[in-house]
């Protein structure tokens, strides 16, 4: 296979695996993720979906195998901020309002052009709750407040761990719409979910995990 640099996948995994106390968490994996692509990571509970995402985000060290970013070996310093991770823990301060949480995130990551905290929160469905402490929001609203980061912060690759959890139907549709807009704009995303999720823009790539 001869790949020109322009066609190099955004993220490529070769023989990627992870061990926890000498027990392999998942079998070696090979996959490619191109710009504009959406990959759904599927697997049973405990099959290592979260572990994979945390490893791709850079929180866990790469056990075995190789990760390549735009054709070159992935270096965390170079990709920091370009990869956005949303895990089970939402990373919101309960004493802060959604607006304050976003402001802190934006002052570390920067903002997408033409966005600000207020417009992003209105878009994500938290109008009227901008200044309410996160502590007092419902689980679904907290999730939305965390998802607002995706709209505000500039990043190419989204790694979303169970983004649909706690969301109502409108929220789920909203996440799908965000993912579609992101991939249309040349971004890429990896999403874990065991729910049945339908995307409007055709069938997403599926990455199956085996424990």
């Amino acid at each position, binding site marked *: 296979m001869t790949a020109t640099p322009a066609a190099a996948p955004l993220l490529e995994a070769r023989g990627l695996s992870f061990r926890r106390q000498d027990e392999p968490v998942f079998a070696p994996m090979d996959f490619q993720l191109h710009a504009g692509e959406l990959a759904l990571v599927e697997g049973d509970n405990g099959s290592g979906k979260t572990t994979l995402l945390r490893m791709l985000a850079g929180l866990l060290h790469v056990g075995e195998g190789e990760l390549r970013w735009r054709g070159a070996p992935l270096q965390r310093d170079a990709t*920091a901020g370009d990869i*956005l*991770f949303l895990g089970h823990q939402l990373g*919101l301060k309960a004493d*802060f309002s959604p607006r*304050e949480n976003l402001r802190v995130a934006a002052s*570390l*990551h920067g903002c997408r052009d033409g966005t600000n905290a207020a417009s992003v929160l209105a878009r994500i469905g938290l109008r009227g709750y901008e200044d309410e402490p996160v502590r007092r929001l419902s689980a679904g609203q907290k999730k939305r407040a965390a998802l607002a980061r995706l709209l505000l912060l500039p990043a190419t690759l989204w790694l979303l761990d169970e983004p649909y959890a706690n969301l109502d139907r409108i929220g789920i549709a909203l996440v799908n719409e965000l993912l579609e807009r992101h991939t249309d704009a040349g971004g890429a995303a990896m999403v874990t979910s065991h729910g049945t999720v339908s995307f409007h823009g055709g069938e997403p790539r599926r990455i199956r995990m085996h424990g």
Partner: protein
Amino acid sequence: MNRPGLGTACAAMLRRDLALAWRRRGDIAMPVLYAVIVATLFPFALGPEDTLLQRIAGGVVLVTVLLAMLLALDAMFASDIEDGSLEQLVLSPQPLALLLGMKILAHWLATALPLIVIAPLLAAMLHLPGTVIPVLLLALLLATPLLSLLGAVLVALTAGTRRSGMLLALMLLPLCVPAVIFAAGAVAAAQQGLPWLAPIAWLAAALVLAVVLAPLACAAALRIALDA
């Protein structure tokens, strides 16, 4: 899109942690209350003799303030680990060591500074001569950030373990001792009219070293704690 500069990120981090501390003002008041109670109890236990109190005043205030600081040390990174904020800090495109340095600074401002403010009051209650109080304050201004920085490294090292409180106390004791010896040495020397600059200089040197190294060690330790 352009990445914010270091200054913006550091200022935001400092503001964030100070705002969070201010929303939980009760937690700030706790160490102060503790220090006041301990310093008040000493004359009752030892008897109100001027000469005795004067002799122990400097040491009592120092130890009381440092112990009061330990009460709040545990919480330095706990809430950030719990709610996932730390993961977001680690993944942000800013140097983690600097962000953690700002967190430590905010923690010092929120816990140690109120203690330093009431320290002259505690010292006066124990009849420490007024001329010695500036030296006591100087010693505290150097010893408390030193303890915050050393403590932060240990808190980061024990972050992944359960029941880290016990381990933390055990590990912190040997690191506390030099700070207490030099700070108390300076106060005692000033009280006897001897030159007190040397122990202060030692404290300052240790602080400079800790300011440079502790945030780096914290960053490394917390990365390891998350990588499990």
